C-alpha cells in the first residue's frame, strides 16, 4: 500500500468560475443569434429581416459581454490551477488524470475535424460527380462538368440566384501553403527540442525552444492571413465559392483558430517557464500544450495533402 499522502486525491474546493463561464456562454450564444438575425443579408446585399434589424446592435454587445465573461473567468480558473500546481497539490495520481483527460480531449477534437474532412470527401467523391452525371433531359445542370475543385453548378437557392465566379482559381499547393507546412513542421521540432531541454533541466534551451515555437506559430498565422487576403481580393475565392470555398475556408479557418489557441497556450507556458514553474519530473502543463501543438500540426498535414495538394 502506498503512503497516506500518495493515496490522497486532491479534490478542489468549490469554485464559481464554471457557473459564470456558462452565463458567459449563454450571453455570447444568444447575442450571436440576435446579431446574425438582425444583420443577415441576401446575396444581393439587402437585409433579410428588416423587421428584426434592431436586434443586431444589442446582440453584438451581448456577444462581447459574454466573451469578456468567458475569457476573464477562464483566466481566473486557470490561474487557480497554476497556483495549485506550483504549491504542490498535484502529485502522480492527479497528474495521470490530467494526462488521460488531455488525450481524450484531443480525440474529441480529431472527431470535430473528421466531420469537415468527411464533408470534403463526400462532396468531392459523391455529390459533385453525381450532379454532373444525370441525363441531360432530367437535370437543370446540363453543362456542369464533374471536376475538382468545384464551385458547384450554380442555380437558384431559396429565391436567391447563386452564380459561380468565372474568375475562380483554387489555392495552389506551392508558395505560401508550402512555407506554412515547413513552418509548422519546424515548430514541432523546436517544441520537442524545448522538451529535451526541460528534461535535462536546461532552462535556457527550454525557453529558447518555446520562443522559437511561438515565433513559428505567429509567422504561420501571418502567412495564413496573407493567403486569405490574396484569396478574397485577387483570386475570387471566398467562403461563398461553392463546395471548394466552403470546405477550404472552414477547414483552414478552424485549423487557424486552433493554431491561435495553441499559440496563446504556448505563450502562457513560455512565461511559466521563465518563472521556473516546471521541473524535469513535474511539467504536465508543458506536455499538455505540446500534445495539443502536435495535434494541430498533424491536422495541418491532413489539410495540406487533401485540401491543397490532391
Amino acid at each position, binding site marked *: 500500500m502506498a503512503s497516506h499522502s500518495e*493515496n490522497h486525491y486532491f479534490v*478542489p474546493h468549490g*469554485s464559481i468560475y464554471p*457557473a459564470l463561464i456558462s452565463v458567459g456562454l449563454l450571453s455570447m450564444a*444568444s447575442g450571436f443569434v440576435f446579431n446574425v438575425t438582425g444583420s443577415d443579408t441576401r446575396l444581393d446585399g439587402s437585409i433579410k429581416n428588416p423587421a428584426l434589424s434592431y436586434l443586431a446592435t444589442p446582440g453584438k454587445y451581448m456577444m462581447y459581454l459574454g466573451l469578456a465573461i468567458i475569457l476573464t473567468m477562464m483566466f481566473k480558473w486557470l490561474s487557480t490551477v497554476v497556483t495549485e500546481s506550483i504549491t504542490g497539490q498535484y502529485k502522480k495520481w492527479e497528474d495521470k488524470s490530467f494526462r*488521460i483527460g488531455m488525450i*481524450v480531449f484531443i480525440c474529441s477534437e480529431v*472527431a470535430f475535424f473528421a466531420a469537415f474532412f468527411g464533408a470534403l470527401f463526400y462532396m468531392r467523391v459523391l*455529390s459533385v460527380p453525381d450532379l454532373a452525371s444525370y441525363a441531360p433531359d432530367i437535370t437543370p445542370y446540363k453543362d456542369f462538368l464533374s471536376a475538382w475543385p468545384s464551385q458547384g453548378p450554380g*442555380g437558384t437557392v431559396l429565391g436567391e440566384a447563386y452564380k459561380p465566379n468565372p474568375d475562380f482559381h483554387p489555392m495552389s499547393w506551392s508558395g505560401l501553403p508550402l512555407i506554412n507546412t515547413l513552418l509548422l513542421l519546424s515548430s514541432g521540432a523546436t517544441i520537442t527540442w524545448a522538451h529535451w531541454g526541460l528534461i535535462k533541466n536546461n532552462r535556457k534551451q527550454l525557453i529558447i525552444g518555446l520562443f522559437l515555437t511561438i515565433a513559428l506559430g505567429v509567422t504561420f498565422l501571418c502567412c495564413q492571413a496573407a493567403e486569405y487576403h490574396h484569396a478574397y481580393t485577387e483570386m475570387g475565392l471566398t467562403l461563398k465559392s461553392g463546395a471548394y470555398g466552403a470546405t477550404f475556408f472552414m477547414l483552414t479557418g478552424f485549423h487557424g483558430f486552433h493554431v491561435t489557441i495553441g499559440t496563446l497556450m504556448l505563450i502562457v507556458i513560455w512565461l511559466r517557464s521563465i518563472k521556473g514553474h516546471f521541473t524535469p519530473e513535474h511539467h504536465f502543463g508543458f506536455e499538455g500544450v505540446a500534445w495539443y501543438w502536435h495535434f494541430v500540426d498533424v491536422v495541418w498535414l491532413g489539410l495540406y495533402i487533401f485540401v491543397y495538394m490532391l
Partner: protein
Amino acid sequence: MSTTTVAHHDEHHDDHPTGIMRWLTTTNHKDIGTMYLTFSLVMFLVGGSMILGIRAELFKPGLQLMNPEFFNQLIGVHALIMIFAALMPAATGFANWMLPLQIGAPDMALPRLNNWGFWILPPSAILLTLPFTLALFGVGDGALATGWTFYPPLSVQGGIGVDFAIFAVHLLGISSVLGSINIIVTIYNMRAPGMTLMKMPMFAWGWLITAFLLIATIPVLAGAVTMLLTDRHFGTHFFDAAGGGDPIMFQHLFWFFGHPEVYILLLPVWGFIPQILQTFSRKPMYGYKAQVYSLWAIGALAVVVWAHHFFTAGMPVPALLYFMYSTMAISLPLAVLFYCWIRTMWKGSMSFETPMLFTVGWIILFGIGGLTGLVLADVAADAQYHNSYFVVAHFHYTLFAGGIMGIMAGVYYWLPKMTGHMYNEKLGKTHFWLTAISFNVTFIPQFFVGLAGMPRRIPDYALQFAEFNMISTVGAFVLGLSQLLFVYIIISCVKGGKKATDKVWEGAQGLEWTLSSPPPYHSFTEQPVVK
C-alpha cells in the same frame, strides 16, 4: 469481490458553503449528481407537457388547438428536451452519484470540470425554449420547427428558432464531452486498488463505452450544425446542390452522431440493469464477460450503421445492403445481453420490489422495441414503414421503455441509498403499473396506425385513424399524469420515511452498499482494497 477496509469517514471535512452557493460552486460528485438528476426530472416534465399538447391536438382529426407551425415546434423541442435534457443528464447524474461509490473513488477525477459540465445545461435549456417566449413578444416565429433532426433545406429556411437550437446543441455537446472526459478519466485512474477492469461493476463498463461513443460522435454533430449555421448565415453551400453540396450529406453527418446516440442513451441503463437483476434474484449476474464483450461489440457496431435512418433518401444498392446487414448484426450481441439478463433471474430467489418490477417490465418492453427495430432495418420493409407512426412507436419502446423506465428502475434502486429513506413501496408499485399499462395503451395503437400508413409529424390525419389516435391520447394523458405520482414519491422520500439500512436490499452486491445510507459527504477518502 470483497472489501478489506470499510470506508473511513471524516465528517469534519464537510466545510462546503450553504444555500445557493453550495450548488453553484460545488465540486462534490454527489451534489453534482443530485443537480443532474433534478434537472433531468424537471425537463422530463417540461418535455412531457409539450407532447401532451401534441396528443391533445391529435385526439381527433382536424385542427383544434394549435396551428401546424406550433405543432411542429412542439414536436422538435419535445424530442431535443427528452434526449438531451432528460435522458442524458439522468444517466450522467447516476454516473456522478454512483461511479465513485461503485469503484471506491474519493470523487470524480476532475471535480471542477464536472461542475462546469452540469452548469452548461441550464443555459442550453434556456436557449432551446427561449424562442417560444420571444415569439410572444413578436421576435421571430418560435422554436425550431424541423423536428429534432434539423434536416436541410427546411432548417436552412427556418427562423430564429433554428439558430437557438444550433447553439443549444453546441452547449449540450460541450457538456457531454466534458462529462465523458471526466468519466473516462475516473474509470481509468480512480478505481480502488485491486479492481481490475474485468472486476469493474457493469455500470462502469456501460458508461465507459458510452463515453467513448460520445467523444467520437458529439463533435461530428457539432461540426454538422456548424455547417448548417454557415449555410444559413454566411453563404456556404454544404447542403445546397447549386454549390456542389448535398442536403443528404447532412443526414449522413447527423446520423453518424444520431445512431450512436441511441446507444449513448441505452448503454448506461444496460450497465445497471444487470446489477438490479442480481440484487433481486439474489445470485451473481450471469455471463459478466459475455456482457462486457457484447457491450463493446454494440459500441463498435453503433458507429458504422447510421444510414439505416434514411434508406428512402436514396443510396446505391450495395450501400443499402451493407447498412441493412450491419444493422441486423447488432441484434446478435444484443441477444447475448438479453440471454444474460434472463439467465441472471433463472432459478434465483426473486422478489419483486419496485426496481425489480421496472426492470422486468423493461426487459419485455425494450424487447419489443428491439424487435421492431429489426423490422425497420429491413430495406424492403422500411420503404413502407419509414416516416410512419410505426417508427414513432418503435423508438418510444426503445427510448421511453428502454431508456426512461430503465432510469426509473435505477431511481427506485438507489433512492434509499442516496436519501437514507425508503420510498413508499405501495405507491412505487402503483406508479409502475400505471406507467407500464398506460405506456402500452399509448404506443401499441401507434404501431397499427403506422402500419396502416399514418405519417408522423402531421397535425391532421385521415378519418380511418381516429379511434386509435383517441386511445393513444387517453393513454398518453394517463402516462403523463402518473409521472406526477413519481415526483410525489421522490419528494416524500427525500423529506422522510422509513430509515434505510446501509445495505438497503437483501441481495445487494457492490461497494456502494458498504457505505452508510445516505453516504457521507466525502466517501472513500481512503480507498478500499478489492480482492
